[in-house]
């Protein structure tokens, strides 16, 4: 056990005090040395499990006598159940989502249109587990969640992502800071813990927490209500805080602010750089403390740090993928110039040097500032790649941002193989297609034995999950074909969403790959069919081994923006 690890564990367990310089040294190593961090995590994780397993009184006799299995401490269980008795029964959330109806209707329309490619009997899918991709707006949006910095949502709140539209309703933040841009032009910086209800583009109600509100020149007026106050922004910025005990303060951060007590018509003006607190006697002067409120500069600074941390964690994981001997293609879209016409394959083993050729697609920003991506705008745009060999198993993983699904079928990736003459089918590698249908179904099509291209496909669809509310967000899509077991599984954001049985042992080829598009067959071309992808991609992995569900879940967790 090396000294740094021992010192860190000792400090963590409160057995040692560390000097500031030593603390900085260890923190720096934790941040920069992945192996060291993993070792430390392994140590504290096992320590936690051992302590938890042994801590309850009944545990020791169990350990001494039975030495197998465990039951949780009855004390804790009973204590929880006793406290539950005083709580109301939870209710299932019933969310009516207009997009589901729209998607269902679209699916009917699309089903009639997609016959060109999908006239054959699809393989029977095993009923998938319902995925949990939530976050859909329930009513017309009134704002956009523009920035999320070190935030943790309160229990029961959806895991909102940056860029999500917000409908009228409550936003409950446990920790961190978020920037909410209302459609009126008002900009709210909310610091957790906070509970705020967005009522309309021009009004919000702060029950608890701290909010700084800015109004630009283009914005309309905005009113922030609290349990005792009504604060109207007249074109500058103000801060409001409501403590858990109900103490309320208003600070005029820039320019003057109009304030009135709830239920009163009289309005007071707070001059710039002054503050008032609500008291039984009215609004009293209180020290002006702008530093108490989240400010754009500080939010940006913290955001920058968080982005750096996330990017570093993803880069470490991406590096591991490059070293994996089963990885044949890993486009991470990093360290490339916006003029590059080739996409660098980062693998270190077989496949090294087989870069992609970019046709028409443009360089853009990926999941984080500083991370590259390629943006596709349909039609002819694509990336071509070639890889030798035939394989029975395959993992395809891509981080994509789907901007639109304007045509019946959109191609994510496909192999475009020339068909060998009849009679050689048994040994030939089969073409395949990785697609998204207009109704939001991810699908993997595998060419049938002996069938003429392009109509004879076994289609393996997932449920329609990539629905309009997911468009514009970064999604982790994966398809795993376990050729030995004869199972094909689709994943969205690390969760398995569909499983299909496929004949085992089929050979697949990666020899001619097309990313983001698909060359239509003659008949399709005559009908004007187009398969071009509208969106962006900032990571693509092709491996010739089937990845496990836990592994894909980890890649999603580390890679999610």
């Amino acid at each position: 056990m090396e000294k740094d690890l021992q010192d860190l564990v000792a400090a963590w367990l409160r057995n040692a005090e560390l000097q500031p310089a030593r603390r900085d040294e260890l923190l720096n190593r934790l941040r920069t040395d992945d192996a060291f961090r993993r070792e430390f995590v392994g140590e504290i994780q096992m320590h936690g499990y051992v302590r938890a397993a042994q801590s309850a009184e009944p545990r020791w006799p169990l350990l001494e006598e039975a030495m197998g299995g465990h039951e949780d401490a009855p004390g804790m269980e009973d204590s929880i159940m006793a406290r539950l008795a005083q709580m109301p029964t939870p209710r299932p959330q019933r969310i009516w989502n207009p997009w589901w109806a729209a998607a269902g209707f679209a699916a009917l329309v699309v089903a009639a249109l997609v016959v060109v490619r999908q006239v054959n009997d699809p393989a029977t899918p095993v009923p998938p587990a319902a995925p949990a991709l939530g976050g859909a707006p329930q009513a017309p949006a009134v704002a956009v969640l523009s920035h999320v910095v070190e935030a943790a949502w309160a229990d029961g709140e959806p895991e909102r992502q940056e860029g999500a539209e917000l409908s009228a309703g409550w936003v409950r933040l446990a920790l961190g800071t978020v920037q909410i841009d209302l459609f009126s032009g008002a900009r709210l910086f909310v610091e957790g813990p906070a509970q705020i209800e967005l009522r309309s583009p021009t009004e919000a109600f702060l029950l608890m927490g701290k909010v700084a509100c800015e109004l630009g020149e283009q914005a309309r007026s905005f009113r922030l209500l609290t349990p005792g106050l009504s604060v109207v922004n007249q074109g500058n910025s103000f801060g409001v805080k409501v403590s858990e005990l109900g103490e309320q303060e208003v600070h005029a951060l820039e320019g003057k602010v109009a304030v009135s007590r709830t239920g009163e018509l009289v309005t007071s003006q707070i001059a710039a750089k002054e503050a008032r607190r609500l008291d039984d006697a009215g609004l009293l002067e209180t020290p002006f403390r702008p530093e108490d409120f989240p400010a754009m500069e500080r939010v940006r600074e913290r955001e920058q740090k968080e982005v750096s941390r996330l990017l570093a964690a993803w880069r470490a994981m991406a590096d591991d993928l490059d070293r994996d001997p089963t990885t044949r293609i890993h486009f991470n879209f990093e360290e490339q110039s916006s003029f590059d016409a080739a996409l660098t394959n980062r693998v270190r083993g077989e496949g090294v040097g087989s870069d992609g050729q970019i046709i028409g697609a443009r360089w853009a920003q990926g999941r984080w500032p500083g991370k590259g991506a390629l943006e596709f705008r349909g039609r002819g745009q694509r990336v071509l790649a070639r890889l030798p060999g035939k394989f029975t198993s395959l993992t395809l993983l891509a981080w994509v941002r789907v901007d639109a699904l304007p045509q019946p079928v959109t191609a994510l990736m496909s192999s475009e193989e020339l068909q060998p003459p009849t009679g050689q089918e048994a040994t030939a590698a089969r073409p395949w297609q990785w697609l998204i249908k207009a109704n939001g179904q991810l699908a993997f099509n595998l060419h049938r034995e002996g069938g003429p291209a392009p109509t004879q496909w076994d289609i393996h669809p997932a449920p329609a999950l990539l629905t309009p509310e997911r468009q514009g967000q970064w999604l982790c899509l994966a398809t795993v074909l376990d050729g030995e077991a004869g199972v094909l599984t689709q994943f969205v954001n690390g969760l398995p969403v569909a499983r299909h049985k496929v004949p085992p042992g089929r050979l697949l080829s990666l020899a001619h790959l097309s990313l983001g598009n698909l060359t239509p067959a003659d008949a399709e071309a005559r009908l004007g069919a187009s398969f071009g992808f509208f969106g962006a991609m900032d990571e693509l992995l092709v491996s010739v081994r089937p990845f496990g569900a836990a592994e894909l879940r980890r890649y999603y967790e580390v890679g999610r923006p």
Partner: protein
Amino acid sequence: MNHDIEALHAAIDEVLAGHRDGFRHIVREYGLGVRGFIASQLYHLDDVDDLAQDVFLAAFEALGSYRKGDDFGAWIRGIARNKVKMYFRTRMRRENAMERFRSEVSEVVEADLEKASLAVEDEQLARLLHCISKLPDKMRRIIQGGLEGQKAQALAEAMESSVAVVYVTNHRAHKLLRECMQRKVA
């Protein structure tokens, strides 16, 4: 975590239908995992248990928002993570530099700890006590003794050894435990 998903969903349905006794199943199934997750970050075991209880109460309240098909372990660890963050945040205001240091360490390792938690199978946890019992005597003494507070020093004295040796032995014991837990599952 490989819990019985059908039983979990049945328990959730039961609770949502007003039969709160179904929640016992969830506490039993996820109790050790949640407490272990919290105990890996918090020092005082009393705090661990208090926080674990708060986590389960919050999970009960929010149970209606859990979406079947999600990893329930990850969902409840999300609640636990928030509670731990709040714990550190409230303590940071009044505690010393070492407490702030631990809070910073906790933030830095957060993603890795979640990743590591995802990788631990339920059966592995269930076998932990059995695996402890299989450790060599010296290691078992250290593992059972724990290393908190002055215990490392006391253990070292009792075993006529040094604190460094106690840490190294503990480290090796963890490796053996991990191997044992994985071997049994395989």
